[in-house]
């Protein structure tokens, strides 16, 4: 059983403070740099998670790693795929056509530095090794856990 791979990110709007630390932690974890200040200070940041706000509540949105990911099926470059329950993007194949953004019902894909498309890959591909948004959330409003049926 690939127990760890069945874990997903869930958010709790009642606990979200709207502090956007998740956005900063995400941008830092995916920057490839060792020092947070060098990575983020005075620069535009490109997080793969975004805090949504409707004046009453806040919560963070990142890739849901859908069971049947429409972005993967729609990618015109064959650059998206699902591996061990994680939806991934092969940036070397991506041509920035943004079809994935046209189809994602959550608005979870974002445009990164220099127009590249980026998405949450649960920090499994960077040095953090576990979702940085979850690790750094001061109020446990973002959790990474297994719930219900696996795929």
């Amino acid at each position, binding site marked *: 059983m690939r127990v760890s791979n069945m874990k997903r990110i*869930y*958010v*709790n*709007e*009642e606990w979200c403070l709207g502090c956007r630390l998740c956005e900063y932690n995400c941008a830092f974890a995916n920057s490839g740099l060792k020092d947070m200040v060098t990575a983020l200070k005075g620069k535009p940041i490109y997080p793969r998670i975004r805090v*949504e*706000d*409707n004046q009453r*509540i806040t*919560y963070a*949105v990142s890739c*849901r790693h859908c069971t049947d990911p*429409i972005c993967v*099926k*729609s990618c*015109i*470059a*064959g650059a998206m795929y699902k591996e061990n329950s994680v939806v991934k993007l092969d940036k*070397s*194949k991506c*041509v*920035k*056509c*943004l*079809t*994935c*953004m*046209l*189809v*994602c*019902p*959550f*608005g979870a*894909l*974002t*445009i990164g530095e220099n*127009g590249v498309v980026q998405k949450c890959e649960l920090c499994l591909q960077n040095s953090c090794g576990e979702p940085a948004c979850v690790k750094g959330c001061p109020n446990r409003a973002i959790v990474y856990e297994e*719930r*219900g049926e696996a795929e």
Partner: protein
Amino acid sequence: MKHYVIIGNGVAAVGCIEGIRSLDKNAKITVISEENRAVYSRPLISYYLEDKTDLERINYRSPDFYDKMGCEVLYGKKAVRLYCNLKNDIDSDLVTNNQKKVVVSDGTVLDYTSVCVATGSVPFIPNIEGLDEVKDKFCFMTLDDAEALKSAVNSKSRVLIIGAGLIGLKCAEGLHNRVASITVCDLADRVLSSVLEDDGAAIMKRHLETNGIKFMLSDTVMQFKKHTAIMKSGRQVEFDVLVLASGVRPNTGLIKDAGGEVNRGIIVNDRMQTSLADVYAAGDCTEGNDVSFGGRRVLALLPNAYMQGFTAGVNMAGGNEVYDKAIAMNSVGFFGLHAMTAGVYNGEIYEEKDESSLKRLFVKDGYLVGFIIVGRVERAGIYTSLIRERTPLSEIGFDILKKDATTAAFPSNVRRKMFEGVV
């Protein structure tokens, strides 16, 4: 043993293979591939001209894809005739026993359990006087076309493109760094006339012009005199290389000849069945239901091709898959400016507009049925999903949503369901 035959080797074929294998790991699959190549991302041929992809990265699947999927591919071959269990199919000895067969161009005859026709589309070649005398002329549909075009142009080439649609303009973008000049003509009065209306097209045209593309709209070539095109307006265009991009037609011949129902495309239902028994069809050659349009139409779009192919594959293997969420949709960018469109353009309009961006949403009978967004395209997928899922706007906070594509506009019960938790 069961034998699934797939005619065509594009993205719909991949969907079909993956659909079959999601249920049936063992049956034999044969793919008939007219092009002598493994499946590649067809819309990427313009990026190939720009060196934004190459012959390796343009592959749609990994090199071991067919092996892993247990498929035999007949490269460089064409299906020339399809026989199925129809009583009126009498013009061959092959059907005396009422057999289901595909005849291949090299004479091979394949028996099938079920077959998927995924033959895509063919370029429409306009009938223009003197066209035969033009030496350097190209279509822009295949990687072979792109390679031939790439070797035919140089930094002195003057290129004339007939057709300001998606194919013609992506070709223009792909060529612009390689050639001296590019002129695009189209009988329509605007660029991208199949996906954009007046305002969006005007923004895109200006942007393309800023990047050096010249246009002759509401105009077309009446006659070629070798390197001169004589236009309907009377103007003349000197050119070295000609690209024909005036449209495509669904490649329906096999089904038509077999007696199946064909309109503009091969008629399919939501399970991707044609009117012929055990014959399925998927991709650009088909005409299926469009939920925003409320009827059948040809949707020559890559995502649609994959999803139709997958649906056909599952059903061919005995499953019960329905694809009833097809809509027209496009995401296309030129020189950094993106346009996203979906659905149909009628009903009440909500609009935001400035010099370089446009957002136009179309609402009909309480549903979002279409949109055109140029420029600020972030999270347009939230709108696409409302069209695809036919979400009644009365159930969501559309007053906020129309201004800002955000799931935060949804009522909490809808949002909680979407995000499977306390959101």
